């Protein structure tokens, strides 16, 4: 049985309030990577680690942007439409546009900048 690692001991409970690293399961990430294309090359053992962190940052950013939409609507529950709005409003999330519109949502979710013209 492994000794409790100093690393996780220090980070839990937090310097920054975070409860430690959340490594997403590397095997699962590797699986998704392999399915991402037809001729995916071999994946080094370290690549999923990099992905794990990148995913974390991605989710954090998407969550944060979605939450800003929620706040603007003066609500305390983050819902699917908020996520959709965040995706639409962010350039680098363009690759998600199909995904968020596929989920059966009405794609009338207007980009945030266009709201003004609607009020009469």
């Amino acid at each position, binding site marked *: 049985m492994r000794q409790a*690692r100093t690393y996780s001991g220090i980070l839990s409970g937090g310097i920054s309030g975070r409860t430690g690293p959340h490594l997403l399961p590397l095997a699962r990430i590797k699986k998704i990577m392999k399915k*991402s294309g037809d001729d995916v*090359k071999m994946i080094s053992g370290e690549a999923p680690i990099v992905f794990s962190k990148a995913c974390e940052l991605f989710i954090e950013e998407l969550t944060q942007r979605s939450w800003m939409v929620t706040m603007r609507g003066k609500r305390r529950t983050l819902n699917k439409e908020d996520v959709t709005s965040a995706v639409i409003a962010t350039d680098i999330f363009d690759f998600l546009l199909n995904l968020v519109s596929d989920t059966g949502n009405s794609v009338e979710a207007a980009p945030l900048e266009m709201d003004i013209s609607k009020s009469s």
Partner: protein
Amino acid sequence: MEPMDIVGKSKEDASLPKATMTKIIKEMLPPDVRVARDAQDLLIECCVEFINLISSESNEVCNRVEKRTIAPEHVLKALEVLGFGEYIEEVYAAYEQHKIETMQDSLKGGKWSNGAEMTEEEAVAEQQRMFAEARARMNGGAVAPKQPDAEPSLES
């Protein structure tokens, strides 16, 4: 509890564990905020799509430099190309940290098995020391684990 959440799309046989994802999501938000279930699911799907995107680009980068294995630097390049350049620094730091950790694990032996608990300060100091040692070792190019006799036996 199902280890895998089937998200309903044919391509996504593998998805990410809901519990871990939920944790990450909740940490970003004030404690009293709730996340609708379908919003959670959508966030997870977006993450999988993100992996797909970066994977494809990493694959391209790898092709271009004519390597056969996708390595971390290909992934970092992909992030930059796709507009996620601001992630690079943190991602790289986490990667380095993980390497150190792995090195620490292979050093486990005398140091940690005495069972005595260190105070947090001592542990931090110890970790800093090992970090610096490991970095020096990496920079020097020698990857051999530390000998207990502490005589570096490099031929000069």
